[in-house]
C-alpha cells in the first residue's frame, strides 16, 4: 500500500532495499539453523561449601559422550557421561565410584515421572515406596560428597528413553562411544558456577490481636504458630518439599484463615494474641527462627504463652508426635499435651510425646521448637516423624514430591491444632465442644489446602536462591496479610557457615554424532559415484575410445610422421 503512494524514484530504491534485506534475513536465518537431536531440561546437583569444606558437584559445563550402565568392563569413562535411570540404580556402585574418586566425565540421573509435578499427578506406580527410599538414599550420598564432575537430574520422557535404549544397544555390542565410533554426545554449554553473594533469608510474621477488656492495661498473652517454608535438596531447582515443609506452611495458612474468621467479630475474639510466623533458614539449624526470635523485644518474648511449630504433617495415618524440650512433668507441657490429647481422642488420632533435652553448646538444632526453648519460651513441634533428623536430612529433597502427600492428613492435622488452640483460648478445655465442626461455616476448607499444596509443590524454595522480592515470598506475605491484622517481613543474611553456588538448571543438548569411519566411507562412495558419472558422460557423448585414450599416452611423433 505504501508502495503505490510513493513516487517512481523511490520505487527502485525500495526494490533494491528488499533484496538487501532479504539477503540479511537469509544470513540471520542461516546463522540460527543449528539444532540437536533432543534438548531437555536438566537440573544440577547442589554445590555448596560448609565450614570451608566443599560439597556437591563442583562443575557445571558438560561436553562428553554418553555411556550407559552396560559399559564393557575396563572401559575408560573419564570422558564419558553415565546415564543412569533411577529404576536401574545400584547404589553401591555409585557409592563406590564416588568414595574411591574414580574418574568420570559426568553423571546424569533419570527420575521417573512420579517425582515431577506436571506429569506425576495420579499415576499408580507399584514400587513407589521403594523408589522413594532409593532416591532418598542417593540424595544423602550425593549432598555429603565432594564430586569433581557435573551431576545432573532429568525427568524421563520419550526422547531420552529412545536415546538411552540406543546407547545401551551400542554398549552391548561392545563399542563404547569415542570420537571415532560415533554415538551420542551430551553438551551443556553453561559458564562456570559462581558464588551466590549474600544469600538472604526472609521471615514473614502475621499478628492477630486479641480482645483487650476495657480498662485492662496488661499485655495480652500470645500464642505463636510457626512453620519454616524453605527447603534444601540435591537439586535446588527441584526441591519443592511438599511434605517438608509444604504441609506445615499450608496448615499454618489455613489455621490463620480460620482464626481470622473468628477474630473478625469482636464478640468471638479471644483474649489471646496470635502470632503466625513463616520462617526461612530451616535446614540450616533453623537459623532464621533464631534471628527472628532475637529480633523480638523482651516484653513480647515474655508474653508468649507457648509456641506450636508445624513440620511434616502431610503423610501420616493415625499417629502424630509432639516434640518438646522441657520435661513432660512441666505444668505447661502437661497442659498443652492434655489439650491436644483430648481433641485427638475425639478425632481418633494417637498423639505421642517425645522429650529431648537441648544442649546449648551444640550448634545442631534438629527441630524448630528448640530455638524457642533456647530463649526460654515454651514450645513444641508437631510432626509425623518420631526421630530427630540429621543435618540436611528430611528437608524437602527430590523424593518429597506431591504424590506422597495426602491432603486429608493435613486437613485432620489442621483441625487438631485449631481445636486444641481454640479450646485453650476460649477456656473450653475438657469440654466436648466442636468449634471447627465439619460442614459448618468454620469448617476446615480442603479446597484451600489442596490449592496451596499444589502451589507449594511446584515452587522450589531453597533459601539462597529466593531473592528478597521473590514472587512466592510476596504471595505468602499477601496471603498472611489477608488473614491477619499486621504483617512484617524481616530480611537477614544467611550465616557464613554456608556458601552456595548458582547454576541450578540448564538445557541439555543431545547430539547424534557420526563416526570418522562413516565420513570416510561416504567419501569413498561419493568418489566412486563421480568417477562413474564421469565415465558414463564421456562414453555417451564422446565415445568409449575417448575414455580409453585418456589413460593412454598420446601417440609419439615418430608414428605420425611415418
Amino acid at each position, binding site marked *: 500500500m505504501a508502495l503505490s503512494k510513493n513516487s517512481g524514484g523511490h520505487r527502485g530504491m525500495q*526494490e533494491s532495499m*528488499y*533484496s538487501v*534485506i*532479504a539477503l540479511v*534475513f*537469509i*544470513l540471520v*536465518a*542461516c*546463522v*540460527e*539453523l*543449528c*539444532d*540437536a*537431536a533432543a*534438548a531437555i531440561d536438566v537440573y544440577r546437583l547442589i554445590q555448596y561449601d560448609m565450614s570451608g569444606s566443599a560439597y556437591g558437584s563442583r562443575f557445571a559445563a558438560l*561436553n562428553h559422550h554418553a555411556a550407559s550402565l552396560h559399559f564393557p568392563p575396563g572401559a575408560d569413562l573419564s570422558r564419558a557421561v553415565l546415564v543412569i535411570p533411577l529404576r536401574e540404580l545400584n547404589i553401591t556402585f555409585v557409592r563406590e565410584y564416588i568414595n574411591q574418586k574414580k574418574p568420570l566425565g559426568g553423571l546424569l540421573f533419570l527420575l521417573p515421572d512420579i517425582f515431577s509435578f506436571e506429569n506425576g499427578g495420579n499415576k499408580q506406580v507399584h514400587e513407589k515406596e521403594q523408589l522413594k527410599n532409593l532416591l532418598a538414599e542417593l540424595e544423602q550420598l550425593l549432598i555429603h560428597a565432594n564430586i569433581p564432575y557435573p551431576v545432573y537430574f532429568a525427568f524421563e520422557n520419550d526422547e531420552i528413553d529412545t536415546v538411552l535404549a540406543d546407547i545401551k544397544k551400542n554398549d552391548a555390542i561392545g563399542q563404547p562411544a569415542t*570420537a571415532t565410533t560415533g554415538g551420542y*554426545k551430551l*553438551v551443556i*554449554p553453561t559458564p562456570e558456577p559462581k558464588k551466590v553473594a549474600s544469600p538472604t533469608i526472609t521471615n514473614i510474621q502475621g499478628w492477630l490481636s486479641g480482645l483487650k477488656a476495657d480498662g485492662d492495661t496488661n499485655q495480652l498473652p500470645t500464642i505463636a504458630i510457626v512453620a519454616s517454608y524453605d527447603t534444601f535438596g540435591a537439586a535446588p531447582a527441584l526441591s519443592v518439599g511438599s511434605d517438608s515443609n509444604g504441609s506445615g506452611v499450608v496448615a499454618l495458612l489455613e489455621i490463620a484463615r480460620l482464626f481470622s474468621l473468628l477474630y473478625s467479630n469482636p464478640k468471638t475474639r479471644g483474649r489471646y494474641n496470635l502470632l503466625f510466623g513463616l520462617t526461612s533458614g530451616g535446614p540450616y539449624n533453623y537459623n532464621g527462627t533464631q534471628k527472628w526470635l532475637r529480633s523480638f523485644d523482651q516484653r513480647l518474648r515474655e508474653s508468649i504463652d507457648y509456641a506450636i511449630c508445624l513440620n511434616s504433617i502431610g503423610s501420616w495415618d493415625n499417629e502424630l508426635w509432639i516434640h518438646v524440650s522441657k520435661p513432660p512433668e512441666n505444668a505447661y507441657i502437661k497442659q498443652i499435651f492434655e489439650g491436644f490429647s483430648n481433641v485427638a481422642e475425639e478425632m481418633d488420632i494417637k498423639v505421642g510425646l517425645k522429650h529431648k533435652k537441648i544442649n546449648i553448646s551444640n550448634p545442631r538444632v534438629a527441630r524448630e521448637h528448640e530455638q524457642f526453648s533456647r530463649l526460654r519460651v515454651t514450645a513444641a513441634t508437631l510432626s509425623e516423624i518420631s526421630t530427630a533428623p540429621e543435618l540436611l536430612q528430611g528437608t524437602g529433597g527430590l523424593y518429597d514430591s506431591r504424590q506422597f502427600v495426602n491432603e486429608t492428613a493435613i486437613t485432620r492435622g489442621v483441625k487438631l491444632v485449631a481445636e486444641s488452640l481454640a479450646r485453650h483460648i476460649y477456656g473450653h478445655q475438657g469440654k466436648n465442644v466442636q468449634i471447627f465442626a465439619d460442614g459448618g461455616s468454620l469448617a476446615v476448607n480442603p479446597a484451600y489446602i489442596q490449592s496451596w499444596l499444589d502451589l507449594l509443590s511446584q515452587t522450589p524454595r531453597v533459601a539462597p536462591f529466593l531473592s528478597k522480592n521473590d514472587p512466592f515470598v510476596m504471595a505468602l506475605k499477601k496471603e498472611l496479610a489477608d488473614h491477619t491484622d499486621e504483617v512484617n517481613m524481616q530480611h537477614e543474611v544467611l550465616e557464613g557457615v554456608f556458601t552456595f553456588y548458582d547454576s541450578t538448571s540448564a*538445557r541439555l*543438548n543431545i*547430539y*547424534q*554424532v*557420526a563416526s*570418522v569411519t*562413516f*565420513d570416510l566411507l*561416504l*567419501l569413498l562412495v*561419493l568418489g566412486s*559415484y*563421480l568417477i562413474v*558419472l*564421469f*565415465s*558414463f*558422460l*564421456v562414453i555417451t*557423448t*564422446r565415445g568409449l575410445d575417448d575414455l580409453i585414450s585418456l589413460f593412454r599416452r598420446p601417440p609419439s611423433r615418430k608414428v605420425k610422421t611415418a
Partner: protein
Amino acid sequence: MIYKSVFSGLIEGPKQIQSNKNKTICSSQIQIENWGQKIRRKMTMFHFFNCAILTFGPHAVYYSATPLSEYDTLGTSVKAALVYLGTALVKLVCLATFLKVSENDGFDPYQELLKAVIGFIDVAGLYFALTQLTHRNISQNHKFQAVGLGWAFADSVLHRLAPLWVGARGLEFTWDFILQGLEANANLVLSISLAALGSLMWLRKNKPKTLIPIIYACAGIVATMPSITSYLRRGLGWHFPKVVGFELFTSLSMAFISWQLFSACQRPSS
C-alpha cells in the same frame, strides 16, 4: 509483512530442511566448537566437504566429461548463471507483491497456483538465456547443455550453499544434507532436459508435426516440477527421502524422454 514474504519466498530451500525435523533452535551452538575438540571440528568440516562435492561435483564433472570443455563453453554457462540470478530476483519481487504469508505450513491451492504461475518466469528466463544472449559459434547441441548447466549451478549455489555451510559443520549428524545433494543432482538433470526442450521449441524451426504437442507437454511438466514437489511435501505430507527419490526418478525419465525427442528431431536434418 512484505519483508517476511520476501524472506519466505527466497529461502524455500533452507525452509525445507528446517521443516523436516522438530527441534529447538539454539543460537549458541557455534561456540561449542571452540572447546578444544579440534579433532571433532576437522571431522565436521569433512562432512561439509563430502556434502559439497555431492552437491556441486556433478556440475564440474559434467562440464569436463562432455565436449563442453573442448569447445570452451564456460562463457555461456556463466551468462546463463547470471540470467538465473536475475530471474530469481524478479520472482522474488513478484512473490513479495502478490503472495500472502500463511501462518500454517499446509497446502493452500490458490497460493500454490500463484507460485506455479510465477514459476513460469523461470521458463521466460530460460528463453531469454537460450535465444537472446549472443553466444559464440557453438552448435545447438552444446548450447542447451551449457545453458542448462549454468542454470542448475546457479540454482544449487543460491539455494543450497548457505544451509550447507552452516548446517553440515554442526555437531549433529543428519541425512538431510546428503539428500539435499541428491536433490541438486536431480535438479541438474531436470535443468538440462528443460533447456533441451526449450531449444527444441524456440531454436529449431523444422520439427516433425506429430512431435510438437509432446514437446510442449514435456516442457510443461518439467517447468511445473517445483510445484509438484511442494504439493507432494505439503499436501500429501511425504517425507524428504521419498520426495528426493521421486525427483530423481522423474528427472531421469524426463531426461530420457527429452533425449529421445531431441534425437528424433535431429534425424530429418541430418
